[in-house]
């Protein structure tokens, strides 16, 4: 089935079974391996992308459901050669350890801050449910608090 959508600002045409998860369309059909596979049941958040600006767990979004939509992955979060403020904060606070969960974490956090630039800690806890096995939560929280304090 031919499915057309925009990915990181580029129009793409995918010829895939309609129930193919967006995650695997991105990784295998489009070679965008920045979005990660962690669980396949939307429990971990490693696969988080933006669909029309909203954070979604792409392992559980069939590609047919994003026909005509605009998808942003970690590779397209910031224009080439620049960093999104969340990415910069992640470097400033040395957040990642193994880093495997961090694409999804950054996509979830950037979506939250776009919707709510100054979230309370409680709101952050509710919105950011990504799993991190290396245990970077203390730094994730510090980085978000620093971002939330800026204009």
């Amino acid at each position, binding site marked *: 089935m031919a499915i057309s959508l925009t990915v990181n600002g580029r129009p793409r045409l995918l010829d895939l079974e309609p129930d193919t998860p967006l995650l695997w369309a991105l990784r295998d059909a489009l070679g965008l391996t920045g979005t990660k596979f962690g669980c396949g049941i939307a*429990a*971990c958040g490693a696969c988080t992308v933006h669909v029309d600006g909203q954070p979604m767990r792409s392992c559980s979004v069939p590609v047919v459901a994003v026909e005509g939509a605009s998808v942003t992955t970690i590779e397209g979060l910031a224009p080439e050669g620049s960093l999104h403020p969340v990415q910069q904060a992640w470097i400033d606070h040395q957040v990642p350890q193994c880093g*495997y969960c961090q*694409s999804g974490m950054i996509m979830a956090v950037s979506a939250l801050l776009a919707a709510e630039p100054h979230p309370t800690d409680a709101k952050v*806890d509710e919105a950011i449910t990504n799993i991190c096995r290396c245990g970077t939560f203390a730094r994730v929280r510090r980085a978000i608090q620093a971002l939330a304090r800026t204009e």
Partner: protein
Amino acid sequence: MGKWTRRAFIGTGTLVGGGFVLGVVGAAFSPSRHGVVSDDAESKGELNTWITVTPDNMVTILVPHCEMGQGAQQALAMMAAEEMDADWSMVRVKEAPALDAYANGYVARAVGGESIPGVLGRAFDYGTYRLVRWYGLQPTGGSMSVRTTGRFGMTVAGAAAREMLVAAAAERFGATPSELTVSRSQVHHAGSGKSATFGELAAAAAKQSVPSSPALKSGDTYTIRRTAPPRPDIPSKVNGQAIYGIDFTLPGMLYAAVEIAPVYGGKLVSVDTAPAESMPGVKGVVKLEEAVAVVADSYWRARTALANLEPTFDDAGHGGVSSQTIFAAFDQALGAPPEMPKDAATVITADYQVPFLAHATMEPMACTVRVDGSGAEVWAGTQDPLNARATAASALGLNARQVAVTNLLVGGGFGRKLPFSLDFIGLGARIAKAMSPAPVKMIWSRETDMQHGYYRPAGMARFAGALGGDGKPLAVACHYAGGGDGESVFMPYTIADKRADAKDAKHPIRTGAWRSVLNSQHGFFKEAFIDELAYAAKADPYTFRLNLLSEEPRFRAVLERVAAMADWKSPLPPREGRGISLVESFGSIVGQVAHVSVSPDGALRVKHVYAAVDCGDVVNTDAATAQVEGGIIFGLSAAMKGEITIAGGRVVESNFHDHEMIHLSDAPQITVEFIHSGHALGGLGEPGVPPVASAVTNAIFAATGIRIRRLPIKNQALRSAAAST
């Protein structure tokens, strides 16, 4: 000309273009070699080069350890660069290739490394090197990279490089080495005002004689090691560019999804492959002894086709094994509680129990293998690429030298990807052989990953403790089942009669090293029991421990520090409590205090965890802090929620919905302080884990009077009897 000598354990050579290469151990014992070394000597395995200085004044340091977020590569480069007095901004760090020359035996120094003097040390290192080179080992684990490879290898290599660069400068300036100083990749002669960069001196340095025992810097002159430079692997981890094992791709690559016999040791009995063969994109169905794999032109197509199969597997005769039978066998093996002195005023006993745990690395097991007529290539993220090579070779019936392994970033290790637990590499290789010559990337689903682990062993311990009339402990003893060793059962407390006896109770569940290994069970058992003994003595748990540490000043200092950090004695509101725990593992002493609150309906909130760490000295202070923070979260997740259960011989849990992990909302504030005791370097990857479970359960007792002896905490009722209070 370069010199390789039989006596020195450091060898050097000159690179084409005038660079200077320095190796440690290994290749130094090849027959004397003179001459120029080509740029690709490393990749040909002709040279065990750890440090390269090139005419452009760049220092490149090759580190024989993987990067899994612990920052070992950078830390070891910092240690070498420190000894060289290199300009850190002119230092590049790379992972050493998976070649025999880079087999790494320094980890053997973790066993008694301190006590091996000088020349014997070199012989020990050489002997170990030959052994690991023969076996093919290049492990990262056991919290050993900094305290063994770094301490016994990298620092020496750096110091040797420095002496040879200084010697070259001395000749050039017509001075003696003692008149020269080194800083930021330059050698200076104050007397004449002359100076030269490492790059300018490199070719001449390679001709110097190799110092067999170069002098190491003293800590008070460190300018690099105790700083916190940003980690070089982080930028690619925030922009999607980092390539983990699961991300590797090749033109023409196929993808495999696999289903493995659910009971460990079980075999594939039968499967009708037709339902998969006709599915879109499927290139083949591979039947193996213990598994069936579908290979297709995309992972999703492979996985979808696999779901159409109905393989039958046998259960290796273990169909009657369950968590119930395993713990019942433990209970039986433990027998009666240990004997206590007859004249004790008070005797208490307690049983503790912990479950199997999965590593649950965020990156599920995955690897790409290409097999053709001449051999095989493997791309994966592992904690030992040489053992990955041996594993693949064995699976393919090849000689190890016919297999080339490229190690990629590791999306979480925690011990799952250690040597001898690289089952997925062997499986991926066998699938690729069936599809030869196409490269095949095998990806495990989370379900397969969760159910085919090398689990942290379940364990049970039966303790008894005796107090004298004065409230001082006379004896503490335990029987334990599920694993333990001298380090894990050790208690630093001065108690006349301390015993720990292993009781055997076998089971067929595959186990392995899970972050902090046996300390993850015994850190909970022993520090929970000491806490109970303190309360039996009507003593404050901190004071009770402190009074038993007069003979262990390092432990005492750590305990005092963490109590001060946590403001131990300050009053807390009702339903809040603090618990303390003190555990040494992998050469580091860690004290933790957990501050928790428990609501009337039993909701636990871990508010703050304080950790005081004596690991001797700290390399990269920020990365070191991150390791302790990470260990605390890892241990806390297990303590609160982690549980792998067995039924019908197989693992019950399959994904994160039933093997739960904690989230950001569960994460406490964490405060870490290091005590620079100046003792031998201790590890940091694991020591943050063992104390946290008991710190939290001890805190829960202080807050509620409820004593938890079985983990995970989520299975225990914390609801208070009078919920209205």
